[in-house]
């Protein structure tokens, strides 16, 4: 099993969600997060004084899939989330040891 964690632009969430449902991903978890990458945010002026917006709002997706499906999901996700501009985000992939369905105790890939 793989965990696919993606930090994406908030306005790309709908497209990503549709793309993932389109290829049959069973479940996703979404959280609103804040952070910065290499640009460290940007500056704005408010009533004539400058301020830095250093922690920008982003969406974090967490998806758990069988090993065999990982590459396809990553590909679809990256395509849907891409606008080509700075700030599109990143995808992280890691291995998962086990999973449990709380309702009936199913284990492993059967629990996904």
């Amino acid at each position, binding site marked *: 099993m793989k965990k696919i964690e993606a930090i994406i632009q908030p306005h790309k969430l709908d497209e990503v969600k549709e793309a993932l449902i389109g290829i049959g991903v069973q479940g996703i978890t979404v959280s609103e997060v804040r952070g910065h990458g290499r640009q460290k945010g940007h500056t*704005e*002026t*408010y*009533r*004539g*004084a*400058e*301020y830095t917006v250093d922690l920008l709002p982003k969406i974090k997706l967490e998806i758990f899939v069988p090993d065999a499906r990982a590459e396809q999901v990553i590909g679809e996700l990256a395509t849907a989330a891409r606008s080509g501009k700075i700030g599109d985000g990143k995808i992280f992939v890691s291995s998962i040891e086990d999973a449990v369905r709380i309702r009936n105790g199913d284990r492993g890939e059967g629990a996904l």
Partner: protein
Amino acid sequence: MNAEKHKEQSRRRAFGRALLRGAAGLATSACIIAILLLPCRAQEGPKPDPSGLTTGDKTSVVDAGGNNFVVAEPTDKTAPDYAQKKKDFDEFQAQAAKEPLAVKLADATGHIRLATNFAWTLNTGYLVLFMQAGFALLTCGLVRKKNAGHLMMLNFAAYVFAFLAYYAVGYAFQFGAMAVNSAPGNLGGTPTLNHFLLGSGFWGFLGGKGFFMAGPAYDAGSNVLALFEVVFMETAGYIIVGSICERISFWSFLLCELFIGAILYPVFGCWVWGGGWMSQLGNTMGLGHGYVDFAGSTVVHAVGGFCAMALSVVLGPRLGKYGPDGKPRAFPAHNLVYVVIGTFVLLFGWMGFNPGSTLGATDLRISVVAINTNLAAISGSATAMLFWYWKFGKPDITMACNGMLAGLVAITAPCAFVGPTSAFIIGILAGLVVCLGVLFNDNVTKIDDPCGAISVHGFCGILGGICLGLFADGTYGAGWNGVGATSYLGQAGKGVTGLFYGDSKQFLVQLMGAAICAAWAFGATFIVFKAVNAMKSMRVTKEVELEGLDVPEFGIPGYSEDAMSVSAS
């Protein structure tokens, strides 16, 4: 835990002491007033009319040109037109004896005329009262989220405590001698408010009747005035919130409000609106119609704005407002929705503020006033939006709102005396002044003004007073402050006139009056609260300021879901 408890106790003790001091102050002033009232008791004079049954008779009947239905008997036999006046009087008497039914009808008409004006003035007063809600929204939206509750409490307490002070002494100080020089004929003339505490005749400095809105002020006409004027005072009272918020402690804020309601506002108000010395400068020194401020650019807004400036200087800027390099930092507004809604509520309320200041719907100038007020509001806002767009590349929503308020503040003094073009220009000037004022305070004076109250109300208030002296076109206000009732500048019916229409003296007195206003509001506030601050710091502690004032001062955050450990069960 112990330190926390100790802090809590000392805070409570401080509050107790402040409360005691306040109570002692009130008791002392009550005693002084009682002593002052004694001689008034002995005087014979007009009786108040609490029931409203005798207010408004044939003497209140006035035609559109301002001529009385009842012709008064001339008393000055040496006057050149005595013979003509005596003839008019005799003719009226003969006519009245022939047509008693007409005289009876005139009694009813006079009553209805005043009723119309009562209804107008009260209802516009209610609109002004609603501005309180607009200002609460505006200022709360402009500050950081951690101080939302603090802002709401300040706005709320401002209404309550300033009202208290105005009820006790403020109203009497301001209008206690109203009938001497500027009886409000539209409301029956308030003949019982006829005594100056300081000064007399054309040189009155402080009114002296109507303390606790009782005795001579327990009168239907006087109470209309009291309702309308107390909400004006409240406007000055809440203006300061926009400057001193996010760092002032609650006890010292209460002192500020008592000071404004009892002294700062009523004294200047008496000088200009209560028949005091500044309004009579036309009679005493030949300066135009005396100092004129129709609805309070200076009397209300500049007094509040410069009081706010003095308090902000005493308090110092918010922590972190200026970086180590001295450059101002932005503390972005936490809720722009409140800011915009609040501004519109204020605009709506201003439709009472300015047109209501005629104190009567029988003065048909009200429609001109309403249009002028709106014109200045939109041109002020447009100017601020475009100026910011040009200077910073993006129009600032909060400055667009400040620009609208700036236009409103600046048109408040001249609104009845100018035409639409002038109103539009005054709005543009105000839009520029508020933008430059905000940048000036931020970068040059370094006076921290979170909501722009000093620029909006202080600077644009002064601008309004001066603009009256420039743009007044003479179409309205004949006989204002007892000057030029029959003719002015050689023309019958000529009213208050500014420099551009040929009266340089009016301009001079407006300049003088606006300067006195700023000096009084800033000076008196600064002296009093510099002293208070020296005795005990008016600021909250550094820790409280950084945490946000909501929980340390009031026990709950503005948005309670933010509380870490609020449990509903």
